[in-house]
């Protein structure tokens, strides 16, 4: 009885299952692993924002990343390309798996035989949120990949504090925005 009840509760917390989340997470970790084993660099995604600005701005804050800016562009292009491979395969239905439930948010649109996915989250939320993310991740020394994946994997106390802070604040803000009736 208790067991059935807890299974039902778990199912409610994970209405889309967990397999694609866990597999995707392991792949994210493997991507970091491949780069780290070859180079000893624990790659995060948000430094790219500042290192790329060093191409167009002479500010000291950006120029300090000059030496890493080329590979960070390549890393980001790799991320875009990897997600595009997903779009060309699973998202477009060329590959399918019981471990991959497919998108049930946003809008799927067919463009010349390729299925693209479009968000319905309003542009102002993306833009304003983006500004705060640009400020916060750089001031706070990392984002979900730098602190959340590489930092936590390093058992770094700064990253534990960073993750706890942005996770709790984000939960509060998302709940507030939802309560105010902003959707999507």
């Amino acid at each position, binding site marked *: 009885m208790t067991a059935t009840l807890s299974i039902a509760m778990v199912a409610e917390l*994970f209405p889309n*299952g967990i397999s694609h989340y866990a597999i995707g997470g392991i792949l994210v970790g493997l991507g970091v692993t491949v780069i780290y084993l070859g*180079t*000893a660099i624990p790659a995060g995604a948000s430094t790219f924002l500042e290192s790329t600005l060093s191409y167009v701005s002479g500010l000291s804050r950006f120029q300090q990343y000059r030496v890493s800016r080329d590979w960070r562009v390549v890393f980001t292009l*790799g991320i875009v390309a990897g997600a595009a491979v997903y779009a060309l395969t699973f998202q477009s239905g060329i590959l399918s798996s019981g471990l991959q439930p497919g998108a049930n948010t946003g809008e799927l649109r067919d463009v010349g035989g390729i299925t693209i996915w479009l968000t319905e989250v309003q542009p102002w939320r993306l833009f304003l949120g983006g500004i705060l993310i640009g*400020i*916060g991740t750089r001031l706070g020394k990392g984002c979900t990949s730098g602190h959340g994946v590489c930092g936590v994997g390093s058992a770094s106390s700064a990253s534990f504090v960073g993750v706890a802070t942005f996770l709790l604040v984000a939960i509060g803000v998302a709940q507030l925005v939802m309560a105010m009736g902003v959707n999507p």
Partner: protein
Amino acid sequence: MAPEHEQHPLFLPLVFVGGLIFGFGLGFSHMAQPEVVLNFLQFEDLGLLFVMFGAAVVTGITFFGIKQFRREAPLTGAVYGRRLKTLDKNVVIGGGIFGVGWGLSGICPGAAYASLGVGNVVILYGIAGMFVGAYIQGYWRSTRAEGDAPATAAD
């Protein structure tokens, strides 16, 4: 300065392959969909925990395990180390500001790049915002650092 100015011919190809796996993982796990992240933050689907901690477990095994076998990375000669940052008030203030942005939009840097890859051109609003934000803090901190005495190339 970390020895990141790399000459090895396999350096950039390896970074690209790593990014490719990373980006495919973000697509496969639906993290490229801001709605899925917002659903997590609103407690409607907690799957994101498996993504972030699944990835952290893999990197943790890598970071701690490799040192048993090798001291230096083959392509750079750099010594394997952990990703450690100084814990100061910036971690909390910056983390808080990032949290507001993440909660408002459902996007974060890596997932936003991946979102572009799955065809979500609307995410360009978010990526443009991130560059604006990164510029604002860089401008502020660069000019402030020049006003103060010797600029410290921290974090």
